[in-house]
């Protein structure tokens, strides 16, 4: 199964994409061939559970129509990595505002797990940054993650960014304490001050709640189903 996933990933990289039209007797020089990038890294801290660090990386490298996407997120609590995942995807621009992505996700914590990842990313009407990604694990478990956010300039440099993430599973995943259906929601408001476009300190108030069957499982284990956290961090764009 892993080999198949790898083959799928490599296949996606090797895919030739849209062929360039013959420019006839004109040689396209200096134009359109450049590689650009946007990689946004956030790292923040919350004073709970003995000190909780979190990182979140989202970005792309590539041209206008095809890009390699890199995503990673994780949590370190009390000096120990509780969650860590890395996604590597290839994306094709299919609409002015939308890219289709295909790639892999590798979890390192809480347990090693490999997934095939497929989704869309783009800008929905009313400027909602939107990511919807489906994951199929090597165990055959299917899950869906939907993320949306919106930048609201309070002033030219002070940006309020409400954001929400919703997770759903097609089946129970007992080893992770997850029940089928919507498993959890996280909603927050980030307030950041863009000293430059590339560097901004922020505060982020995040409310997280387990949902449905997943919440029942958590309650049964005596775990919190709802937490609210105030984080302080910095955001950098590379």
């Amino acid at each position, binding site marked *: 199964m892993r080999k198949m996933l790898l083959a799928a990933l490599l296949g996606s990289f090797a895919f030739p994409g849209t062929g360039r039209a013959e420019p*006839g*007797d004109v040689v396209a*020089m*200096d134009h359109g061939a450049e590689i650009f990038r946007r990689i946004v890294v956030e790292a923040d801290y919350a004073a709970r559970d003995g000190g909780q660090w979190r990182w979140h990386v989202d970005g792309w490298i590539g041209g206008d129509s095809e890009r390699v996407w890199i995503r990673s997120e994780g949590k370190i609590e009390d000096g120990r990595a509780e969650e860590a995942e890395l996604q590597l995807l290839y994306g094709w621009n299919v609409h002015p505002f939308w890219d289709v992505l295909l790639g892999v996700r590798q979890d390192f914590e809480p347990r090693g797990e490999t997934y095939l990842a497929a989704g869309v990313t783009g800008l929905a009407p*009313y400027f909602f940054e939107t990511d919807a990604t489906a994951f199929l694990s090597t165990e055959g478990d299917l899950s869906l993650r939907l993320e949306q956010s919106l930048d609201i300039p*309070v*002033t*030219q440099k002070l940006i309020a960014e409400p954001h929400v993430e919703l997770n759903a599973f097609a089946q129970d995943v007992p080893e992770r304490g997850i029940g089928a259906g919507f498993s959890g929601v996280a909603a927050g408001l980030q307030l950041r001050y863009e000293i430059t476009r590339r560097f901004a300190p922020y505060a982020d108030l995040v409310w997280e709640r387990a949902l449905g069957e997943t919440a029942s499982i958590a309650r049964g284990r005596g775990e919190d189903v709802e937490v609210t956290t105030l984080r302080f961090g910095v955001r950098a764009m590379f």
Partner: protein
Amino acid sequence: MMKTRIRIPLPTLASLALAGGLVAVPYAAFAGNYDLTVAKAKVEIDGRTVEKLTVNGSVPGPTLRLREGEKATITVANEADEPTSMHWHGILLPGIMDGAPGFNGFMGIAPGASYTYTFDIRQSGTYWYHSHTGTQDQSVLGAIVIEPAAPPPFPAERDYVVLLGDITPENSDHVLRNLKADPGYYNYNKRTLRDFFGDAREQGFGAALRDRLDWGEMRMDPTDLADVTGYAFLVNGKQPAENETFIFRKGERTRLRLINGSAMTLFDVRIPGLKMKVVAADGNDVEPVSVDEIRMGVAERYDVIVEPDGEGPYTIFAESIDRAGYARATLAANEGAEGPIPERRPRALLAMDDMGAAHGGHAGYDMDGAKDEHGGARDDHGGHEGHGHEGHGDVHQMDDRHDGHDGHDGHHMHEMQHDGAAHESPSAPARAVGWASGFPEGSKVLAYEDLRARAAPGDNRPPDRSIEMRLTGNMERYVWTLNDKRFGEAAPIRVRYGERVRIDFVNETMMAHPMHLHGMFFELENGAGAHRPLKDTVIVPPGKSVSVILTAREVGAWPLHCHLLYHMASGMMTAFVVEPPDAAEAGITPDGASLPLAISHDGHGGHAGHGGM
């Protein structure tokens, strides 16, 4: 307001003086021979000393003074560590001499190499030169003045070049990278929550919200009038504090050769207290028209004659259309005098009405690009039907810009005046609304329809066919395109030698695009009948259309592109190929397959040292 200074090294003062247009020297003293050297030099902008590519050590480079009928021989040496090129904007010449890398076998000038351009001068007027490589043209540029063979129809006692420019201390390639990473990178004029509450107080909460939702639905930003900020604005390389000064005597006629040589800036140019008599547009004589103000697209030129009946000093004031800043110079009886700086105008917001075509534009991505038959039902172009846009069509009025042949004869500039009058009434709002706003009531702003060629172009045949060129793009990704295709993705436009074609520029974006064709003039369809003015660059305002006609008399592959630097660099260019006569006779179809033009596919040919013939 930004404070900027550009200091030019002393040895280049001589060339600067030339660029300044001190024309006390008789033209005959200048042969058509010039040596230009492209090299890095230190330039001071905004108190920062940065390295920029320059021509002969300065920004701008020397003014080239040529004469109609003579032969120009210009050697460009590249002493930079990157390839360069030099394009002679608006000059009629063989394709290989045009200086656009990748076209007609010219492959640029490699580091350490030089290239000798030679061409016969078949025209007169005000032109300019600039690099056509990468993002170099913001600092590698200069003016060209060609004296007519016959005595000029509008004599003047004094004659000055007024080369408007913009320059950023940033590396110009980094600017493009920043825009690709975040198209709003330089926009610090976004509409904020505070603005929203301000608008809600003025217009009511519902109206303010409705407006936000309308723009949000389109995923567009009405403050997006300029992509790049942080520019210093220049006249002949001098920023406002340096006060470029032109000397005049009361009662004398002074010809000002206005050139917008900026990378990204459209300017509103005026001289408070003086009427400007426009006598030439893009190098070609027009019947004189007196105006108070001219909106100049990047690469446009207007020759104006002023005849002050006072002592002055008068301020030549060129405000960027996003109101980020201004360039200024002074007309004075002696050095050191300074005229008053006019009050700055409010920043404009685009109005929903401006966006008639652009709304359809993004939806138009899926449009099946119905070919223009001209005269047919084109009103729905960019409109509401047939391209799956999610309703909402009643928000913006589609202007009737396509109600027949004459429907789009430059009426946009007309609106400009009316809008202006409407918006700068005593109760003018704090912010101007609309692409074409901010002009004072009663002032005469040059409209394209005011331009009438002094001599009618010989060819008055109706066009054989029309070519539709939609100006398109995706601001979220900072991709700018023609007919939804980036440069290199679309097949070149092919026309037969002698063919007469109309090009319809339909702007589906929310930015104005100054569209430029190399190698030929086109006739602007502005309602002037047989006296259509000849131009090489035309502003197509947001959501509007402009059409031009040309007779394909110059064989070669000619770039046709938006002259905003980063629009061109991100793809807003195509090739306009005029097939040689023999091929045309051989019956090659306009969209025909291949053609044995003397064009090289070899990426090295042109680099060889002295490419001059």
